[in-house]
């Protein structure tokens, strides 16, 4: 008798409700859906509202508030209220050679790691493309680094890089501790060390997307090409590459954005050192915001500059992607 209960408006007995509505007893057998009292619109609102509230609290408000702070001299540890200083923070950052050095480091790092990941990832995808005994397990194993926490990765690569007992140098053939490279201590090598770790961890991601693209290429295209006497290089350039390109570009876009925000690996491996050799913008941002002076205003400005740069680069990729789609 659930439906009778549900039609029991405001606790009045069923008979009374029916009498009020002028319903015959025959109509009583049609189950009145109590849930219909909520209109579709109301249900939609109920589901969406929590998300909207959460978004506003966690994303939109901080975004706008930090934009405001970037024009002030505010510091979270001082009791002074934020004072409007206009563009001072931005001019300070853009005229300081130290910040330019950070940007240059980040750019070099992004270029190196993304291009190496693309090459390694694509090559891995080409190798794992055809099914052979064990290809499934190999694919899974190759994907493992991607699933590890960056701090864990950083810690054990620090052990691998260690000049006195790390395993990398002996593998590379450097057995004399006095002459073997100090990966994390040498300013010329430290950035490369981070690039190596990042490539190790994230090439599988590029590989995964490339594999998806490769598996979507119909076999008959290659057969047609074989009959048309196309060379292997021609098949690669004219069939494989154009077909994988959209997914490859998406992988590169994701990796570029991540590279520009690189923080955890640097923090875990070198803390930005030696000196400022590996000090990426994000590391500097962290120092400004949460160490020493807690310069909230200045760091907000820096964060916004990074945001603008990333949006600009993403736009370039998305344009290229759209051009590809249009064919």
């Amino acid at each position: 008798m659930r439906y009778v209960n549900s039609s029991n408006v405001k606790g009045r007995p069923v008979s009374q409700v029916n009498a009020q509505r002028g319903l015959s007893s025959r109509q009583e057998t049609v189950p009145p859906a109590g849930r219909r009292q909520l209109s579709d619109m109301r249900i939609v609102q109920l589901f969406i509202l929590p998300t909207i509230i959460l978004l506003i609290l966690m994303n939109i408000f901080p975004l706008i508030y930090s934009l405001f702070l970037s024009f002030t001299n505010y510091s979270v540890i001082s009791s002074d209220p934020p004072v409007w200083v206009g563009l001072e923070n931005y001019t300070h950052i853009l005229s300081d050679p130290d910040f330019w050095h950070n940007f240059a480091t980040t750019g070099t790092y992004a270029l190196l790691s993304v291009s190496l990941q693309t090459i390694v990832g694509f090559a891995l995808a080409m190798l794992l493309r055809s099914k052979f005994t064990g290809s499934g397990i190999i694919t899974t194993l190759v994907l493992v680094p991607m699933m590890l926490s960056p701090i864990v990765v950083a810690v054990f690569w620090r052990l691998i890089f260690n000049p006195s007992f790390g395993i990398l140098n002996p593998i590379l053939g450097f057995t004399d501790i006095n002459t073997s490279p100090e990966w994390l201590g040498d300013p010329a090598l430290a950035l490369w060390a981070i690039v190596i770790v990042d490539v190790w961890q994230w090439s599988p991601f590029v590989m995964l997307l490339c594999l998806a693209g490769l598996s979507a290429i119909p076999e008959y295209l290659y057969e047609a090409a074989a009959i048309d006497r196309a060379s292997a290089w021609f098949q690669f350039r004219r069939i494989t590459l154009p077909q994988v390109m959209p997914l490859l570009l998406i992988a590169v876009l994701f990796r570029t954005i991540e590279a520009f925000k690189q923080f955890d690996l640097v923090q875990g491996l070198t803390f930005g050192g030696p000196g400022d050799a590996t000090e990426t913008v994000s590391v500097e941002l962290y120092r400004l915001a949460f160490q020493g002076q807690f310069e909230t205003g200045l760091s907000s400005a820096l964060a916004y500059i990074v945001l603008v740069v990333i949006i600009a680069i993403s736009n370039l990729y998305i344009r290229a992607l759209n051009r590809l789609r249009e064919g």
Partner: protein
Amino acid sequence: MSDVRLENISKRFGDTLALEEVSLHIHDDEFFVLLGPTGAGKTTTLRVIAGLEKQDDGHVYLDDMLMDGAQPADRDVAFVFQQYSLYPNMSVYDNLAFPLRSPLRRLPEGEIRQRVTEAAEKLRITHLLERKTARLSGGEMQRVSIGRAIVRQPRIFLMDEPLSNLDAKLRESLRVELKHLQKTQGSTTLFVTHDQIEALTMADRIAVLDQGRIIQNGTPFDIYDRPSTTFVAQLVGTPRINLIAAEWQDGAYRTPGAALSFARQNGAAAEKVLVGVRPEDVRPGAGDFRGEVVLVEPLGVETILHIRTGEITLLCVVSGLSSIQLGEVLSFGFAVERLHFFEMNGRRL
């Protein structure tokens, strides 16, 4: 001069036997059709000739040269796939020029342009040359893939159901164009289809394939008028041939379920037979038998009558629109000289 010969080709995929002892000889300038239902091994035969698949047994000869170990590129064949196998991200022109630009050919760009333009004119796709292939309709795409085959002069054109993905109208017009093209170019063609109309209309010779074996090999006339098995008889001709089980009694084959009898000049060849009667060989109006019209299908150019007599319903085709009404009881006879007699296992007597 092109001449394709298959000798006892067998091919297995795992446990299934795709081709069993297939032998074919396709002559120069011939339009040869491989006809058969899905899974009969038609496409496999084509792929073995092209070198995309390696046969387990038997030999492929192109122009009397043994091609068993040759790569697809070295066999000099052209393949039109069922799916429009166009290279994406390339214009129609580049697609057509693709086989000519192969490093193994090295044709001058001028000659390529001339050949591509020629092919495009033949297929009436000149206005599409600058377009990207993604923006073509199905019919246009298939024209381009046929064009990619005709820009060069291969030994043989291998066509794998090229018309099956097109709508009926387009299929008809492209069918005519293909046949015309083949005759004017004098190109040797092996065409695979499951559509008996395509086979009958286009072929110089037809081979009927079923479960990896060639059942019958002959001209469209042979296939239609002298089907070697009930399978072939049922495969070609619409509406389908009437197959009636009959027994030898009192000097004629008589049906147990209906009062039909079929005379046979040479006398009894077997106790029980299947009698095949093409619908157009059932002649309403005059004859020894009577039946009721249970369904009338007017098609304009002809009308299909379903005539019930006893337990048997016969299909009958009369030309034009018929005045015969549903429910009418009429007398009918058979074109006696055009009856087909088969053994109960399907073999022609």
